[in-house]
């Protein structure tokens, strides 16, 4: 078999960050080639280069042996490369047939040829073994059916290469199973399929070859026969440990400050969780594992539907961020731009925001604890670097913004008992990262409980005193400080469920 698609030495940098570094990749007709890698390993960037959304800085893409350079996703699609994205890109209030033909509607004398459109849509869906009506509205379909429509859309252009980016992430077991059968059928039609997935059982069930990416580099490509789940996991996480994590607390953690028992919500099941004074609890998990939902529940943003929450032994109700803040929970969002800063207000006003929110509405905005002297002291204590604390916060770097938001909660000293950090160092440079870790450790040493939710495994392992791993809305397990990254990854991947994968294969 020759390769339909070859990517040679692909490199792509965003600013100073190398998202892809000389990556080689190929895919043959009639094979399923799975790409594995942690969040941020470069999988999506590679596929965006392939799909024409990004232009590579170096390297070349060959299709059927011919070099191609796509300027726009439409060109890639016309050349036979179809991508089924994780977030479906269908128009909800158009019919199935209209969606399949979006952008390439058949016409007769300049008018839409609806009959031809319906017939061709029907035959495509039949080929996929689906009985969805071509005139149904996409909004009325299940997610699995919508995915099928996406695939039909891909087949309309006689896709030579079909990219599926975590297609089963949103599906239940039954639908996932049907989807895998469908992938098998596409394969026999001679389509080259690139399949991105975090689910190891699934990978073992459908892959012909497996490629592992890590930190934007190609680690290896092997035949399915020659790999084990453990080999994949090791390759995904194996990297040099960095030494900028602060020393762990010398003293034993104290009594539980935050306790959740029997927590339930739309995204969470059976959550029993606690954080003790003086410890940093790391919460790890994949993108859809529920770790984000746990953070939002802790901060009253999407409250638990059932279960009990106690802070320092007192039951509290966390039904809004305001209640959570009043109860003594400080929240440091990962997406600072969207959830953290008020960009046009001064650094000072941003640091004071929670105090202003909790103070009587008509009180002076710079009296008592809110005096300029106190804010500046707090900002300097956090080492926020700004020419003038009166300047707009959007002019500061990400790390300095993060520190100003920490100052916002520290100003409420000593009423904050629990700090919830979500992706504390996302988009922050290495030097500022170390400073944030030092701060977290210092906060813990002062007797507060720190909950750190992070997708960054080295960070989880390097900083946490205790690691809670989530998988599909549940707590999959707990690991002590200094656990292996591989052990965390295995819990996060739900590898214990490998047996179902073998069933799928048979």
């Amino acid at each position: 078999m020759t390769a339909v698609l070859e990517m040679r030495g692909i490199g792509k940098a965003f600013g100073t960050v190398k998202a892809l570094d000389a990556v080689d990749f190929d895919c043959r007709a009639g094979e399923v080639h799975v790409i594995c890698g942690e969040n941020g390993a470069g999988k999506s960037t590679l596929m965006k280069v392939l799909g024409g959304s990004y232009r590579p800085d170096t390297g070349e893409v060959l299709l059927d042996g011919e070099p191609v350079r796509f300027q726009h996703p439409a060109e890639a699609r016309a050349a036979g490369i179809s991508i089924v994205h994780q977030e479906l890109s269908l128009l909800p209030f158009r019919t199935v047939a209209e969606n399949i033909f979006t952008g390439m509607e058949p016409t007769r004398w300049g008018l839409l040829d609806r009959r031809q459109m319906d017939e061709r849509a029907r035959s495509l869906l039949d080929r996929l073994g689906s009985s969805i009506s071509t005139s149904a509205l996409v909004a009325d379909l299940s997610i699995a059916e919508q995915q099928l429509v996406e695939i039909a859309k891909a087949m309309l252009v006689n896709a030579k290469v079909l990219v599926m980016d975590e297609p089963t992430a949103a599906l239940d077991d039954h639908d996932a199973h049907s989807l895998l059968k469908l992938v098998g059928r596409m394969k026999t039609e001679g389509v080259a399929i690139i399949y991105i997935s975090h689910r190891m059982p699934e990978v073992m069930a459908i892959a012909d070859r497996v490629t592992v990416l890590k930190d934007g580099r190609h680690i290896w490509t092997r035949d399915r026969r020659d790999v084990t789940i453990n080999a994949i996991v090791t390759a995904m996480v194996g990297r040099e440990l960095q030494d900028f994590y602060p020393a762990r607390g010398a003293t034993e953690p104290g009594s539980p400050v935050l306790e959740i028992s029997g927590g339930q919500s739309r995204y969470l099941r059976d959550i029993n969780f606690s954080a003790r004074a003086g410890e940093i609890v790391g919460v790890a998990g994949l993108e859809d594992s529920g770790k984000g939902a746990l953070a939002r529940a802790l901060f009253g943003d999407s409250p638990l539907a059932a279960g009990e929450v106690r802070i320092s032994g007192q039951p509290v109700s966390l039904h809004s961020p305001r209640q959570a803040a009043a109860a003594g929970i400080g929240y440091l969002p990962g997406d600072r731009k969207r959830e953290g800063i008020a960009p046009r207000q001064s650094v000072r006003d941003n640091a004071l925001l929670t105090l202003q929110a909790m103070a009587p509405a008509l009180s002076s905005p710079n009296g008592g604890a809110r005096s300029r002297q106190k804010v500046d002291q707090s900002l300097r204590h956090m080492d926020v670097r700004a020419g003038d604390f009166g300047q707009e916060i959007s002019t500061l770097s990400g790390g300095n913004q993060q520190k100003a938001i920490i100052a916002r909660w520290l100003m409420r000293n000593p009423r904050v008992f629990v700090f919830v950090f979500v992706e504390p160092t996302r988009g922050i440079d290495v030097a500022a990262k170390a400073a944030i870790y030092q701060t977290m450790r210092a906060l813990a040493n002062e007797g507060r409980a720190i909950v750190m939710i992070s997708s960054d495994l080295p960070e989880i392992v390097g900083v946490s005193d205790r690691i809670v791993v989530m998988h599909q809305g549940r707590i999959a397990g707990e690991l002590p400080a200094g656990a292996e990254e591989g052990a965390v990854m295995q819990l996060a991947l739900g590898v214990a469920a490998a047996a179902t994968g073998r069933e799928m294969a048979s």
Partner: protein
Amino acid sequence: MTAISDTARATRRLSLRNINFALVIFVVLYAAIVVLQPNYLDAALFMNFLRRAAPLIILASGQLYVILSGGFDLSMGAVVTLVVLAASMLIGGDPEMTWVVIASLYAMGLAVGLANGFIVSFLKVPSIIATLGTMLLVNGLALAWSGGAPRGDLPDNFRNLGRLVLKDVPLVGSLPIAVLILVVVTLLAWWGLHATAYGKRLLAVGDNPRAAELAGVPVKPTRISAFVISALSAVTAGILIGGFSGVSVNAGRGLELQAIAACVIGGALLLGGRGTVVGALFGALSLFALFTLLNLLGLPQALRDSLQGVILIAAVGASVLRHRRST
């Protein structure tokens, strides 16, 4: 240390420039008026100018609260119309009734403001649509109630609020009651926005509602109160307008857009999060000076609207350009 104080000075200069923009326009326009009519330099005539500008300034101060919270209040003009018509019908020429009726006018304003706030906060209807709805509703109700031809008169003690001028006041010579009310309202608006924790919350809500909410700011009450303040300022303006213009079914027509224009000319950012009461004050004064100038030039009334449009677009364009250059 010197580096820090240098940047501090730079930012102070920058914020001064923001205010200056509207102030400069006002001075230029007023100078043009003086060229045509030198007696506009008299204290008495300037006071009279302020008296007539008072309703627009008061409306702009109220509108500013909503704009800073990230919204628009299009229902202000309708509230003014309602106030004028309701006052004439409820008082029915009986001076005894004046103060009771004024209290009930404020109650009506409160109701409209709460309705706007609740629709925007809880039904999540964009404020431009929500207040367009209440504008039509309030206007329609006011007209239906008055039957299109308002009955009843406003007694002198009501009208005096808008037109009485105190003579022989030390320092300023003459002092219209409306200007006194204007000063009190503007000071209140300034205090609420720039000297309270509430003002800081309002700015944060308009700047980034999600971040404000996660920082513990009560976003919904803050938004609702902005609409209430806006509606109450519209009632105040309506009482003054009824005072010096008398009863008319068109009393409030188009005032909401003038108020928005005044805020924007005064440097308020249309998407919220930035703006000052002083800016809105000079924005309103500029707009009113422009109207006066056009009257003096004898331009037809219809051109007023067109020129207002040009000024509004120019002001927004200038603020966008200024912002783009700064980032």
